[in-house]
Protein backbone atom coordinates (compact mmCIF):
# COMPACT_ATOMS: atom_id res chain seq x y z
CA UNK A 1 0.00 0.00 0.00
CA UNK A 2 1.26 3.45 -0.90
CA UNK A 3 0.12 4.92 2.45
CA UNK A 4 3.40 3.61 3.86
CA UNK A 5 5.50 5.64 1.43
CA UNK A 6 3.22 8.63 2.12
CA UNK A 7 3.91 8.33 5.85
CA UNK A 8 7.63 8.23 5.12
CA UNK A 9 7.40 11.32 2.90
CA UNK A 10 5.53 13.19 5.62
CA UNK A 11 8.26 12.46 8.15
CA UNK A 12 10.98 13.42 5.65
CA UNK A 13 9.29 16.77 5.03
CA UNK A 14 8.91 17.44 8.76
CA UNK A 15 12.58 16.49 9.30
CA UNK A 16 13.54 19.53 7.25
CA UNK A 17 11.94 21.83 9.84
CA UNK A 18 12.95 20.24 13.13
CA UNK A 19 16.46 19.66 14.50
CA UNK A 20 17.20 16.20 15.86
CA UNK A 21 17.29 17.35 19.49
CA UNK A 22 13.86 19.00 19.13
CA UNK A 23 11.97 16.11 17.60
CA UNK A 24 10.56 14.92 20.92
CA UNK A 25 8.85 18.32 21.24
CA UNK A 26 6.70 17.82 18.16
CA UNK A 27 3.14 17.28 19.37
CA UNK A 28 1.05 17.33 16.23
CA UNK A 29 1.62 17.03 12.51
CA UNK A 30 -1.39 18.35 10.62
CA UNK A 31 -2.05 16.99 7.15
CA UNK A 32 -4.85 17.49 4.65
CA UNK A 33 -6.15 14.46 2.80
CA UNK A 34 -8.65 14.99 -0.01
CA UNK A 35 -11.53 12.56 -0.52
CA UNK A 36 -10.20 12.06 -4.05
CA UNK A 37 -6.52 11.78 -3.17
CA UNK A 38 -6.58 8.01 -3.29
CA UNK A 39 -5.35 7.85 0.31
CA UNK A 40 -7.28 6.12 3.06
CA UNK A 41 -6.95 8.17 6.26
CA UNK A 42 -7.16 5.10 8.51
CA UNK A 43 -4.49 3.34 6.57
CA UNK A 44 -2.26 6.44 6.61
CA UNK A 45 -2.65 6.74 10.41
CA UNK A 46 -1.83 3.08 10.82
CA UNK A 47 1.33 3.32 8.71
CA UNK A 48 2.39 6.56 10.38
CA UNK A 49 2.03 5.07 13.87
CA UNK A 50 4.03 2.05 12.81
CA UNK A 51 7.03 3.89 11.36
CA UNK A 52 7.13 6.65 13.99
CA UNK A 53 8.20 4.01 16.55
CA UNK A 54 11.72 3.93 15.15
CA UNK A 55 12.18 7.73 15.16
CA UNK A 56 12.87 10.41 17.79
CA UNK A 57 9.33 11.77 17.44
CA UNK A 58 8.24 10.24 20.73
CA UNK A 59 5.20 12.42 21.42
CA UNK A 60 3.75 13.03 17.99
CA UNK A 61 0.20 12.58 16.71
CA UNK A 62 -0.85 12.71 13.08
CA UNK A 63 -3.91 14.95 12.73
CA UNK A 64 -5.70 14.29 9.48
CA UNK A 65 -8.14 16.82 8.10
CA UNK A 66 -10.28 15.28 5.38
CA UNK A 67 -11.19 17.58 2.50
CA UNK A 68 -14.45 17.06 0.61
CA UNK A 69 -14.49 16.51 -3.13
CA UNK A 70 -15.95 19.78 -4.37
CA UNK A 71 -16.79 20.54 -7.98
CA UNK A 72 -17.92 23.50 -9.99
CA UNK A 73 -20.27 22.91 -12.90
CA UNK A 74 -19.37 24.40 -16.31
CA UNK A 75 -23.04 24.49 -17.26
CA UNK A 76 -24.98 25.87 -14.27
CA UNK A 77 -21.97 27.25 -12.34
CA UNK A 78 -23.13 25.74 -9.05
CA UNK A 79 -20.64 24.38 -6.54
CA UNK A 80 -21.34 21.10 -4.82
CA UNK A 81 -19.68 18.33 -2.88
CA UNK A 82 -19.87 14.97 -4.60
CA UNK A 83 -18.84 11.39 -3.89
CA UNK A 84 -15.83 10.11 -5.85
CA UNK A 85 -17.88 7.54 -7.78
CA UNK A 86 -20.16 10.03 -9.55
CA UNK A 87 -18.57 12.87 -11.41
CA UNK A 88 -21.73 14.70 -12.41
CA UNK A 89 -23.24 17.95 -11.21
CA UNK A 90 -25.93 17.16 -8.60
CA UNK A 91 -27.81 20.34 -9.56
CA UNK A 92 -28.22 19.88 -13.32
CA UNK A 93 -26.74 16.49 -14.10
CA UNK A 94 -24.03 17.81 -16.39
CA UNK A 95 -20.76 15.89 -16.66
CA UNK A 96 -18.85 19.02 -17.65
CA UNK A 97 -17.39 19.80 -14.24
CA UNK A 98 -14.12 20.92 -12.72
CA UNK A 99 -12.58 19.88 -9.43
CA UNK A 100 -12.33 22.66 -6.86
CA UNK A 101 -10.86 20.59 -4.05
CA UNK A 102 -10.51 17.02 -2.91
CA UNK A 103 -7.29 15.85 -4.49
CA UNK A 104 -4.96 17.49 -1.99
CA UNK A 105 -2.40 15.67 0.05
CA UNK A 106 -0.35 18.19 1.99
CA UNK A 107 1.59 18.67 5.19
CA UNK A 108 0.02 21.82 6.64
CA UNK A 109 1.77 22.59 9.90
CA UNK A 110 3.44 21.17 12.96
CA UNK A 111 2.92 22.07 16.60
CA UNK A 112 5.79 21.95 19.07
CA UNK A 113 5.70 22.09 22.82
CA UNK A 114 7.87 24.69 24.51
CA UNK A 115 11.07 23.39 26.05
CA UNK A 116 11.10 23.13 29.85
Amino acid sequence: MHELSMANEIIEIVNQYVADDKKHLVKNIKVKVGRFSNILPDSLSFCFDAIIQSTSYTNVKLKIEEVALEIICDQCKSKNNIEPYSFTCPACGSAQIKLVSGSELTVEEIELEEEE
Partner: protein
Amino acid sequence: MSIITIERKVLEKNEAIAAANRKKFKERNIFTMNLVSSPGSGKTSLVERTIAKSKSKIKIAVIEGDVQTDLDAKRVEAFNVPVVQIITSGACHLEANLVRDAFEKFSDNDTELLIIENVGNLVCPATYDLGEDIKVVIASTTEGDDKPLKYPAMFRNSSALIINKIDLLPYVNCSIEQLKRNALAINPSLKIFQTSCTTDEGIDKWIEWLESIVKSR
Protein backbone atom coordinates in the same frame (compact mmCIF):
# COMPACT_ATOMS: atom_id res chain seq x y z
CA MET B 1 2.89 25.63 21.88
CA SER B 2 4.63 27.00 18.83
CA ILE B 3 3.48 26.40 15.29
CA ILE B 4 5.52 25.98 12.14
CA THR B 5 3.61 26.43 8.89
CA ILE B 6 4.70 24.00 6.20
CA GLU B 7 2.03 23.72 3.45
CA ARG B 8 3.89 21.35 1.19
CA LYS B 9 2.69 18.53 -1.01
CA VAL B 10 3.47 15.09 0.32
CA LEU B 11 4.22 13.97 -3.23
CA GLU B 12 6.41 16.94 -4.17
CA LYS B 13 9.54 14.84 -4.69
CA ASN B 14 7.87 12.44 -7.10
CA GLU B 15 6.14 15.31 -8.89
CA ALA B 16 9.42 17.14 -9.45
CA ILE B 17 11.07 14.04 -10.95
CA ALA B 18 7.99 13.33 -13.08
CA ALA B 19 8.13 16.87 -14.44
CA ALA B 20 11.81 16.38 -15.33
CA ASN B 21 10.98 13.07 -17.05
CA ARG B 22 8.21 14.74 -19.04
CA LYS B 23 10.58 17.48 -20.15
CA LYS B 24 13.18 14.92 -21.24
CA PHE B 25 10.65 12.84 -23.19
CA LYS B 26 9.39 15.97 -24.91
CA GLU B 27 12.90 17.09 -25.86
CA ARG B 28 13.60 13.68 -27.36
CA ASN B 29 10.21 13.72 -29.10
CA ILE B 30 9.04 10.52 -27.38
CA PHE B 31 5.36 9.84 -26.72
CA THR B 32 4.90 7.99 -23.41
CA MET B 33 2.07 5.79 -22.27
CA ASN B 34 1.60 4.52 -18.71
CA LEU B 35 -0.34 1.25 -18.91
CA VAL B 36 -2.28 0.32 -15.78
CA SER B 37 -4.72 -2.40 -14.70
CA SER B 38 -5.37 -5.10 -12.11
CA PRO B 39 -3.00 -8.06 -12.26
CA GLY B 40 -3.85 -10.30 -15.21
CA SER B 41 -6.11 -7.94 -17.19
CA GLY B 42 -3.80 -8.20 -20.18
CA LYS B 43 -1.23 -5.39 -20.00
CA THR B 44 1.66 -7.49 -21.29
CA SER B 45 -0.59 -9.16 -23.87
CA LEU B 46 -1.66 -5.74 -25.17
CA VAL B 47 1.97 -4.61 -25.32
CA GLU B 48 2.76 -7.74 -27.34
CA ARG B 49 -0.13 -7.23 -29.78
CA THR B 50 0.71 -3.53 -30.13
CA ILE B 51 4.36 -4.23 -30.92
CA ALA B 52 3.47 -7.02 -33.34
CA LYS B 53 1.19 -4.69 -35.32
CA SER B 54 3.03 -1.37 -35.04
CA LYS B 55 6.70 -2.22 -34.88
CA SER B 56 7.23 -1.66 -38.60
CA LYS B 57 5.62 1.81 -38.40
CA ILE B 58 6.68 3.20 -35.01
CA LYS B 59 9.89 2.78 -33.01
CA ILE B 60 8.73 1.33 -29.71
CA ALA B 61 10.60 0.85 -26.44
CA VAL B 62 9.16 -0.71 -23.29
CA ILE B 63 9.72 -0.33 -19.55
CA GLU B 64 8.29 -3.28 -17.63
CA GLY B 65 7.33 -2.87 -13.98
CA ASP B 66 7.01 -5.95 -11.82
CA VAL B 67 7.02 -6.66 -8.12
CA GLN B 68 9.23 -9.72 -8.33
CA THR B 69 10.11 -11.14 -11.76
CA ASP B 70 11.38 -10.30 -15.23
CA LEU B 71 8.95 -12.67 -16.96
CA ASP B 72 7.07 -9.89 -18.75
CA ALA B 73 10.31 -8.30 -20.02
CA LYS B 74 11.31 -11.70 -21.46
CA ARG B 75 7.93 -11.94 -23.25
CA VAL B 76 8.40 -8.48 -24.77
CA GLU B 77 12.07 -9.04 -25.63
CA ALA B 78 11.01 -11.85 -27.93
CA PHE B 79 9.58 -9.15 -30.23
CA ASN B 80 13.00 -7.56 -30.67
CA VAL B 81 12.29 -4.17 -29.18
CA PRO B 82 14.37 -2.48 -26.46
CA VAL B 83 13.10 -3.43 -22.99
CA VAL B 84 14.19 -2.43 -19.51
CA GLN B 85 12.82 -4.27 -16.50
CA ILE B 86 12.13 -2.52 -13.20
CA ILE B 87 11.72 -4.84 -10.23
CA THR B 88 10.09 -2.94 -7.39
CA SER B 89 10.90 -5.57 -4.73
CA GLY B 90 7.45 -5.54 -3.27
CA ALA B 91 6.35 -1.97 -3.94
CA CYS B 92 2.89 -1.90 -5.48
CA HIS B 93 3.48 0.86 -8.06
CA LEU B 94 6.17 2.55 -10.15
CA GLU B 95 7.54 5.93 -9.10
CA ALA B 96 9.07 8.61 -11.29
CA ASN B 97 12.64 8.03 -10.11
CA LEU B 98 12.47 4.35 -11.14
CA VAL B 99 11.32 5.35 -14.61
CA ARG B 100 14.07 8.01 -14.83
CA ASP B 101 16.73 5.41 -13.97
CA ALA B 102 15.27 2.77 -16.28
CA PHE B 103 15.14 5.23 -19.18
CA GLU B 104 18.88 5.92 -18.77
CA LYS B 105 19.55 2.29 -19.66
CA PHE B 106 18.19 2.55 -23.21
CA SER B 107 20.95 3.01 -25.73
CA ASP B 108 18.77 3.84 -28.77
CA ASN B 109 17.74 7.41 -29.18
CA ASP B 110 15.23 7.09 -32.00
CA THR B 111 12.33 5.85 -29.84
CA GLU B 112 8.97 7.34 -30.82
CA LEU B 113 6.70 5.52 -28.38
CA LEU B 114 7.71 4.51 -24.86
CA ILE B 115 5.27 2.10 -23.23
CA ILE B 116 5.53 1.77 -19.44
CA GLU B 117 3.77 -1.30 -18.05
CA ASN B 118 2.96 -0.41 -14.45
CA VAL B 119 2.64 -2.87 -11.58
CA GLY B 120 -0.74 -4.65 -11.60
CA ASN B 121 -2.81 -2.54 -9.21
CA LEU B 122 -5.69 -0.11 -9.73
CA VAL B 123 -5.08 1.97 -6.60
CA CYS B 124 -1.52 3.13 -6.03
CA PRO B 125 -0.35 3.82 -9.62
CA ALA B 126 -3.10 6.47 -9.90
CA THR B 127 -1.28 8.57 -7.32
CA TYR B 128 2.17 8.55 -8.91
CA ASP B 129 2.82 10.63 -12.01
CA LEU B 130 5.70 9.11 -13.99
CA GLY B 131 6.00 11.91 -16.54
CA GLU B 132 3.87 10.13 -19.14
CA ASP B 133 1.74 11.79 -21.81
CA ILE B 134 -1.24 9.53 -21.20
CA LYS B 135 -2.45 6.80 -18.90
CA VAL B 136 -4.30 3.91 -20.47
CA VAL B 137 -6.32 1.66 -18.17
CA ILE B 138 -7.32 -1.90 -19.03
CA ALA B 139 -10.38 -3.57 -17.50
CA SER B 140 -11.04 -7.12 -18.62
CA THR B 141 -14.48 -8.64 -18.89
CA THR B 142 -13.63 -11.26 -16.25
CA GLU B 143 -13.40 -8.50 -13.64
CA GLY B 144 -17.06 -7.51 -13.93
CA ASP B 145 -18.44 -4.09 -14.83
CA ASP B 146 -18.08 -2.14 -11.57
CA LYS B 147 -14.30 -1.49 -11.57
CA PRO B 148 -14.63 2.21 -12.56
CA LEU B 149 -16.86 2.88 -9.56
CA LYS B 150 -14.50 1.10 -7.18
CA TYR B 151 -11.33 2.74 -8.51
CA PRO B 152 -12.51 6.17 -9.72
CA ALA B 153 -9.12 7.89 -9.52
CA MET B 154 -7.59 5.53 -12.05
CA PHE B 155 -10.44 5.94 -14.53
CA ARG B 156 -10.67 9.69 -13.99
CA ASN B 157 -6.95 10.12 -14.68
CA SER B 158 -6.78 7.91 -17.77
CA SER B 159 -7.23 9.04 -21.37
CA ALA B 160 -8.32 5.68 -22.73
CA LEU B 161 -10.02 2.54 -21.43
CA ILE B 162 -9.42 -0.81 -23.04
CA ILE B 163 -12.05 -3.41 -22.32
CA ASN B 164 -10.05 -6.59 -22.89
CA LYS B 165 -10.93 -10.29 -23.12
CA ILE B 166 -14.14 -9.64 -25.04
CA ASP B 167 -13.78 -13.18 -26.42
CA LEU B 168 -14.84 -14.35 -22.95
CA LEU B 169 -18.08 -12.33 -22.85
CA PRO B 170 -20.35 -15.37 -23.34
CA TYR B 171 -18.90 -16.97 -20.21
CA VAL B 172 -18.67 -14.11 -17.76
CA ASN B 173 -21.03 -11.93 -15.81
CA CYS B 174 -20.15 -8.59 -17.33
CA SER B 175 -22.23 -6.10 -19.29
CA ILE B 176 -20.12 -4.06 -21.68
CA GLU B 177 -22.81 -1.37 -21.78
CA GLN B 178 -22.84 -1.10 -17.98
CA LEU B 179 -19.04 -1.04 -17.83
CA LYS B 180 -18.96 1.80 -20.38
CA ARG B 181 -21.68 3.73 -18.54
CA ASN B 182 -19.80 3.40 -15.25
CA ALA B 183 -16.53 4.48 -16.83
CA LEU B 184 -18.07 7.48 -18.62
CA ALA B 185 -19.81 8.59 -15.41
CA ILE B 186 -16.37 8.92 -13.83
CA ASN B 187 -14.68 10.35 -16.91
CA PRO B 188 -16.87 11.51 -19.82
CA SER B 189 -13.86 12.11 -22.08
CA LEU B 190 -12.52 8.53 -21.87
CA LYS B 191 -11.81 6.99 -25.27
CA ILE B 192 -13.06 3.39 -25.08
CA PHE B 193 -11.82 0.36 -27.03
CA GLN B 194 -12.98 -3.26 -26.90
CA THR B 195 -10.32 -5.85 -27.57
CA SER B 196 -9.33 -9.45 -27.42
CA CYS B 197 -5.62 -10.13 -27.31
CA THR B 198 -6.36 -13.77 -28.10
CA THR B 199 -8.43 -13.33 -31.27
CA ASP B 200 -7.11 -9.83 -32.15
CA GLU B 201 -10.67 -8.53 -32.39
CA GLY B 202 -10.70 -4.75 -31.91
CA ILE B 203 -6.91 -4.47 -31.82
CA ASP B 204 -6.76 -2.66 -35.17
CA LYS B 205 -8.98 0.19 -33.92
CA TRP B 206 -6.78 0.62 -30.86
CA ILE B 207 -3.62 0.61 -33.00
CA GLU B 208 -5.09 3.14 -35.40
CA TRP B 209 -5.84 5.55 -32.53
CA LEU B 210 -2.48 4.98 -30.86
CA GLU B 211 -0.52 5.51 -34.08
CA SER B 212 -2.44 8.70 -34.79
CA ILE B 213 -1.68 10.24 -31.39
CA VAL B 214 1.96 9.17 -31.57
CA LYS B 215 2.26 10.74 -35.03
CA SER B 216 0.67 14.01 -33.90
CA ARG B 217 2.89 14.30 -30.81
